[in-house]
């Protein structure tokens, strides 16, 4: 590797990254862009890294350079009266959400936030359980400033809640898995946190039908729970309507602990069927999001045949089975690529012409 402009920002590689891998924590978006421009010129593979909590299974070629967003962790602008927040990519979700909570606001990022950064969660396209009520995270991406694979710093969107000024690059960056560049800064739309919230244990999923716009309807290997929020009267009335005793607050199930995890994404009407499938396939634990269409299952040991079976079923129904974590080195994380593969390649190329950003990380080896 030739001398790099990145040397001065060099840090210790985080856990899980090989000790000899050049790891940098540049102090600004411009500095990140400088590193990426250099990597493009030299042909080095780059892996952006936030909290390292949503990196997916190992495998594929290791990166030459790891770009940490940890030095970009500031709230740039928070307008509570406008329900908007401008924040840097490396800010911790937990810190941001607890600051917002003081004014009863939320960016509605995923509930399990240990160590996750806002930029990392957006790049991973993770939405959290409350998407049933508030929609996926991409609906809250109003503006993005990104360092592209070839070292440009670009901004798109705007700091307003409704906007059609140009192409929707902010939304595109959500779920881009680091394949276009590094998300340095973004403006998110916030939601007010309702006055009251409760968790309801139900006997079966049929009980869901009696609820109006719940936050989430979750089923695990142990319980079926509905999460509701609103005015105190509304919460009480909803609980009564389904004959459940409301527990104040939202007691989300803990994250899956298994070393092998598969996420099924299916049309929402197929969640019940997906639950039977993962039960039959010997899942040790699972988290099913009813009416959303996501069922994540944890397994004690890896079995390729099980993935094939679940994937075959999900893909056959217009969905997908994504490997979230695996003890095996050579696993196909995504399965069948989308039909728009050619367009996917060309869009990546528009941001990362020399394919240095996590090449091959997107479905279909894009």
């Amino acid at each position, binding site marked *: 590797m030739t001398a790099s402009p990145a040397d001065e920002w060099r840090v210790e590689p985080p856990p899980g990254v090989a000790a000899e891998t050049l790891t940098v924590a540049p102090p600004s978006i411009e500095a990140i862009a400088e590193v990426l*421009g250099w990597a*493009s*010129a030299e042909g080095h593979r780059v892996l952006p890294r936030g909290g390292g909590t949503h990196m997916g299974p190992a495998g594929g070629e290791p990166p030459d350079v790891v770009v940490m967003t940890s030095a970009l962790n500031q709230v740039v602008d928070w*307008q509570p*009266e*406008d329900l*908007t927040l401008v924040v840097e990519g490396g800010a911790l979700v937990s810190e941001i959400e607890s600051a917002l909570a003081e004014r009863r606001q939320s960016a509605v990022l995923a509930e399990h936030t240990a160590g996750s950064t806002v930029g990392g969660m957006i790049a991973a*396209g993770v*939405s959290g359980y409350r998407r049933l009520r508030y929609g996926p995270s991409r*609906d809250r991406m109003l503006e993005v400033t990104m360092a592209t694979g070839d*070292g*440009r*710093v670009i*901004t*798109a969107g*705007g700091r*307003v*809640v*409704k*906007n*059609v*000024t*140009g*192409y*929707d*690059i902010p*939304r*595109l960056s959500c*779920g881009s898995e680091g394949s276009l560049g590094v998300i340095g800064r973004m403006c998110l739309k916030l939601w007010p946190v*309702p006055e009251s919230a409760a968790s309801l244990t139900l006997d079966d999923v049929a009980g869901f039908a009696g609820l*109006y*716009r719940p936050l989430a309807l979750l089923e695990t290997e142990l319980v079926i729970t509905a999460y509701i929020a*609103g*005015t105190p009267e*509304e919460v009480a009335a*909803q609980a009564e309507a389904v004959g459940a005793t409301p527990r104040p607050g939202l007691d989300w199930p803990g994250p899956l602990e298994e070393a092998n995890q598969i996420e099924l994404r*299916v*049309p929402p*009407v197929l969640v019940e069927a997906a639950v039977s499938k993962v039960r039959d396939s010997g899942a040790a634990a699972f988290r099913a999001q009813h009416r*959303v*269409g*996501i069922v994540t299952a944890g397994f004690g040991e890896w079995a390729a045949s099980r993935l094939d079976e679940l994937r075959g079923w999900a893909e056959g129904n217009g*969905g*997908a089975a*994504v490997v979230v974590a695996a003890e095996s080195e050579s696993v196909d994380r*995504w*399965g069948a690529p*989308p*039909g*728009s593969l050619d*367009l*996917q390649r*060309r*869009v990546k190329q*528009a*941001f990362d*012409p*020399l394919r240095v950003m996590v090449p091959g990380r*997107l*479905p279909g080896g894009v």
Partner: protein
Amino acid sequence: MTLAADLRQVLGTDQVLDHPLDMHIYAKDAGVTPGEVAAVALPATTQEVAAAVRISVRHGVPIVARGAGTGLSGGAVPTKPGLIVVLTRLNEIWDVDEAAQTAWVGPGVINLDLSKHTKPLGLHYAPDPSSQSVSTIGGNIGTNAGGPHCLAEGTTVSHVLAVEMVTAEGEVVTLGSAAPDPLGLDLRGVVVGSEGTMGLVTKILVRLIENPPEVRTLLLAFDSIEASARTVSAVIAAGVVPAALELMDRPMIEAVENFRTCGFPLEAAAVLIAEVAGHPAAVEAEAQVVARAGAEAGATEVRIAADELERELIWLGRKSAFGAVAYAAPDYYLHDTVVPRTRLVETMTGIYEIGARHGINMLNVFHAGDGNLHPLVAFDSKEPGMLEKVKAAAHEMVILSIEMGGALSGEHGVGLEKRDLMTKVYAPIDLDAQARLREAFDPQGILNPGKILPEGSRCYDFGLVANLESGATP
């Protein structure tokens, strides 16, 4: 063979228009600028759309998708002689799935027809542009249309799960799926709002929403526009996101009442229409929050619709606004900008000042809850110099919105009208990034050229490595 003759071989004689009169009709949308038409194609199936695209590409003629042509920014107006592909014949609704709350629809389906169709199931399609009785879902996708009820529910893009589209190469591709988080980059999200520059949408999977069990509609009157705008900020700050929050000023109230008696208070400087919807046990409390915010800002009247009839009358007033203006003046020019909601009062003050300085007749009705402004100028284009004056005022209003931290357009699109103002919002490197994204979809620049991005946006000055790759001279 000519383009029209080639098209007729595939689409049939009647489905291709090239008579000067037809071409004149299709040269304009609901905006003010006309364009030039090479021919008009009226395909009825995805395959016919794809064939028309391939033929036009072969002839080197640009392709412009068109729905109902109610766009206000020139999105459906060709900048050079182009083939207009009218998608209104693809107007089927099929696979309405009550359990999944989704439906597949053709791009030619009229927005309101979809909600009417699903009403017996207690479901509706949330985006409700004021043009919903005439505009198409395909056109709504083209502009990422909004409407009063997009405040709580989000604009078109939040209600489109998947699209089938014909690409610039004339191929058919589906983006998105009924399952959440489809694999790969979210190209569906990019296509919505791309004004026909990335593909021609031929089929759409939409999300339907259950009708709220309870709705409360309020009409609040104020003796100043500032007090009404302050109420908007206060409601949002109080933690209530109403289903709708619309503002009308006195000139607009007068126009509406002259057109149709809806019982709006004529002595008010502004009225705010607020709607809260949801669970019966919550709606009353939220209505009270809105009423209180209004009272604290000095509302002269707070009316809560007592029944469905009164509610319908309030909305009839709101939805008659454009009809009322068309009735009162020969021409109107409708603006669309957006500002942070915290800057509403300042921006409105500035907009009135601009209107007064130019001596134009301005009326306002807008989506205040989103900060989405719609100053509307009523005028007579036969009056010499009038159109220029109206355009000059429009320009100043857009610049003011940008200075307030806002954007060029909240829902009508950039199109032709605001294309050259894009440089006021984005740096050259940002426009170049947008141009590259567009190029990924349409390398030859055959789909609706001259829209959204000003000429020279793809400037090859950025990203040295990329320039070497593409062989362009820096």
